């Protein structure tokens, strides 16, 4: 599920001693540019693996992680909080007696990791007798000593705090000057320095960077008592600070005059637009409920893909491992075998851990598997799931899909969603072309409210901006729109996808799964897509 707690965290922490402890200890800014020496990491990894093997492990992997995060949180003309956090430690996973065991320590000494490795083996041996079948790992060859880094131009962690504060204060001032009643703006910067070693012979050093710059602009009309918010149209990205350069090449002006963003975001421009559009939302007429043809912008569609395709095609959900929390899946194994008609022939959906600029892009996953791109839905038919090493054989495959991830050194890695994206249409088609063919429709931009059942059938989505389409023309901004779907019917109603020139990424920093819960960052790309005859409800209510 896509978590909703981030902005809540942003709203706290004023005047009290409320810390984002979920992200580790707070450190000084200058420490953000350090890294642990690779030679030390290899020494520690070898110590752990030797200890595990001596204790009887048949397999061992070691993840040495240094997770850095920086938050700059503002509202209106105030900086509410600047926090740097660091979490460093070692997670050791073993197979002994055919069962998994895991232990972690924050002490970076040979003695401490060797002891943790023995604890992991002891846990595995304790779990082994109750296990129905031994763990079966898909084969993987060691890759030796390799490294990878998110391609970036400006390391966000190296940008001075003052520049970040100035940027956000400028954004906030511009929104307030444009008529916003309130604005919250945040920079959330992530650097995962991850080292993976395994008894297969891999020593992989990766330096992963992500950036997110959310805004929330509110307009209040005191006379009517109405208020509306418009959130930013940016996306969290696997990029450096260059994402915030606001380059013209990253901008697309849609047929209704709204500017949306690709690989470069103009935060101030978007804040000004948000201020104006939030005010317009207050006065916009309420939607008449009924069936409409929906034209969905990529800034919106990412979340629909995430919930109704990404999650149901996770093999651990299909098998029932998430039954008590995130849920199971309607897309059962028999549907894979029969190539279930998930969507129309316009629907091609791929999982991709390589996509440049995406949140999920790495060279190797947290099991040391070289990442790849693969099909989930081809010509509308279900053809694949997302599986990791100990699941591949269940799907009849001989290799992992390379989508294991752990959100910290102290949590065990498990199957997480890859970037799951709708391929652009092969025929040339612009957004204007698509809208010209719609008689009675609604054009939706930005992600809003979202909810889906535990098997991923019934979903409801809102948005940020809604526009009425009549006889091929955008007529006016409307409000109070949410659409309800049944997943297979929705994707089978896909009547067209614009071409690759319109392809953009959306995504989330906070895809939640597992108990204890872990978060993961994931992107979803698409071009503008049309879905015919979708049920739209009116969400306006009166409290009297």
């Amino acid at each position, binding site marked *: 599920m896509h978590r909703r707690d981030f902005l809540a965290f942003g709203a706290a922490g004023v005047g009290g001693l409320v810390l984002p402890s979920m992200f580790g200890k707070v450190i000084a800014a200058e420490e953000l540019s350090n890294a642990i020496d690779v030679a030390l990491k290899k020494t520690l990894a070898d110590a752990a693996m030797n200890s595990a093997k001596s204790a009887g492990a048949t397999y061992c992997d070691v993840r040495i992680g240094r997770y850095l995060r920086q938050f700059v949180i503002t509202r209106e003309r105030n900086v509410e909080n600047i926090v740097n956090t660091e979490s460093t430690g070692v997670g050791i996973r073993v197979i002994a007696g055919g069962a998994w065991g895991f232990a972690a320590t924050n002490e970076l000494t040979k003695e401490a990791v060797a002891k943790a490795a023995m604890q992991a083996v002891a846990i595995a041996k304790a779990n082994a007798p109750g296990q129905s079948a031994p763990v079966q790992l898909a084969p993987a060859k060691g890759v030796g000593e390799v490294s990878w880094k998110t391609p970036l131009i400006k390391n966000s962690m190296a940008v001075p705090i003052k520049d970040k504060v100035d940027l956000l204060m400028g954004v906030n001032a511009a929104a307030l000057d444009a008529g916003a009643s309130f604005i919250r703006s945040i920079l959330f910067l992530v650097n995962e320095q991850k080292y993976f070693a395994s008894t297969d012979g891999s020593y992989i050093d990766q330096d992963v960077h992500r950036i997110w710059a959310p805004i929330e602009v509110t307009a209040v009309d005191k006379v009517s008592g109405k208020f509306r918010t418009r959130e930013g149209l940016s996306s969290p990205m696997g990029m450096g600070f260059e994402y915030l350069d606001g380059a013209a090449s990253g901008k697309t002006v849609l047929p209704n005059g709204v500017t949306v963003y690709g690989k470069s975001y103009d935060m101030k421009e978007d804040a000004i637009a948000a201020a104006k559009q939030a005010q317009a939302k207050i006065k916009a007429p309420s939607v008449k409920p009924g069936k409409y043809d929906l034209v969905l912008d990529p800034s919106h569609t990412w979340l629909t893909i995430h919930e109704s395709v990404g999650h149901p095609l996770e093999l651990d959900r299909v098998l029932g491992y998430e039954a008590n929390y995130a*849920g199971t899946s309607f897309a059962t194994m028999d549907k894979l075998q029969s190539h279930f008609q998930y969507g129309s022939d316009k629907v091609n959906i791929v999982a991709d851990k390589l996509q440049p600029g995406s949140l999920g892009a790495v060279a190797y996953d947290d099991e040391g598997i070289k990442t790849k791109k693969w099909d989930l839905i081809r010509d509308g038919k279900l053809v694949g799931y997302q599986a990791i090493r100990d699941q591949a054989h269940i799907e009849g495959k001989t290799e992992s899909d390379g989508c294991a991830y752990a959100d910290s050194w*102290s949590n065990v890695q498990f199957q997480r969603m890859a970037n799951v994206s709708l391929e652009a249409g092969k025929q040339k088609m612009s957004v204007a072309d698509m809208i010209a063919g719609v008689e009675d429709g609604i054009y939706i931009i930005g992600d809003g409210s979202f909810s889906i059942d535990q098997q991923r059938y019934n979903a409801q989505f809102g948005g940020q901006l809604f526009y009425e389409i009549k006889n091929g023309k955008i007529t006016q901004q409307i409000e109070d729109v949410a659409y309800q779907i049944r997943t297979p019917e929705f994707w089978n109603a896909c009547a067209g996808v614009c071409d690759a020139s319109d392809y953009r990424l959306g995504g989330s920093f906070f895809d939640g799964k597992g108990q204890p819960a872990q978060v993961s960052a994931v992107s979803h790309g698409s071009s503008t897509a049309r879905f015919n005859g979708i049920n739209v409800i009116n969400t306006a209510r009166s409290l009297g």
Partner: protein
Amino acid sequence: MSILPEAQAKAILTKVVGYSKADECTAQLTGSTRGNVRFARNDVSTAGITDDIQLAVQVAFGKRVGTATINQFDDAALERVVRRAEELAKLAPENPEFMPAVSPQTYLKTDTFSASTAGIDAAYRAKVATDSIAPCRASKLVAAGYLEDETGFTAFLNSKGNYGYQTLTSSDYTCTVRTEDGRGSGWVGHNVQDVAQFNAGEDIRVAMRKASASADAKALEPGKYTVILEPAAAAGLIAFMMYFFDARSADEGRSFLSKKGGGNKLGEQVYGPQVTMFTDPAYPGGAVYPWDDEGLPRKKLPIIQGGKLMNMNYSRYWSQKQGKPELAGFGNIIMEGGTKSTADLIRTTERGILVSRTWYIRMVDPQTVLLTGLTRDGTFYIENGQIKYPVKNFRFNESPVIMLNNVEEFGKPVRVKSDESGTVMVIPPMKLRDFTFTSLSDAV
């Protein structure tokens, strides 16, 4: 060891505050030991223990604030964390909403610790898993569940001499039981401070019964129905609403508690007359720390009285700006109810829907707190005081404000935890009229 005895905690805090050269210094120690066991497909999947202890130091030079944390406790480390906080404070811009550290307070001693919960070990957790799995295996049902227990402490001291120390325990058990063919699903949850009140072998029967009884669900037309929300089902909606009980947002005109023309709805009749809610840090079985995040002392406080809005959450800054007395934020949510069980409420229902659990609740419109979400793991049609048959799950679009204006009857409140909120809540089963279901879900 993550639970420091009081003397040791106080000695560390005193040393830290003594190191500070800033105008103000607040030091806080928090530690916890969390154990868990997870199972699925009738097998244990993971089990573990996480120990964590952290010292946070916040200092202020004028209105410039810096915060740093550390998890080492030798003298050099303690001094280093203070200096680091001081360096950050000097770099920080002035916060116009800065509030000075609180003066010494008198805190209630609330009963938040149970030795039985603190004594949970790996064998206990394994037994919970076995007690859940074994009866399911025997009945051709499939269990997936999770137990997490926590023993923790908090201690703090500021340069004005305000000090607090207390320990707490909690345990949270959830289990989803499904039929082998996937046509039925039931759930049980049990959140307690004192694990002596918990028995997985008894609780699992509830989930098993619902799993078996919910197979062969019939489809009912979506629409407005009388519903009985079990406490866990109601908690998700109530918890979500309480998240928006912030006075500042209301005064700023961007809350369902904002008043047309300005100000907030304090003192107004917002809910039906049956609705009474309060917060009480010492509530038996639902006790919480006697201080809030800002160090203000919690006390028993009405939130809703006979449907009237009595109190909202004010930050210290906002209460000062509005000329209000400083009151601690709500630590727990206690709703008053009656004496009837859920079964009693069913017996007096002519026609209605019983909802065991609600799921994936999200805000649709903050103006009216319109929430959407789904029913799951046991939804049943009631006729003439009896459960007639299982029904397919529904999606709802409903505002808890409207819902709490349509109260038929409340049953006996119990402690519950919602899926996505850590707040300790005591919530009754609720019989409500005209609850809005907007579509059907095929999910089991």
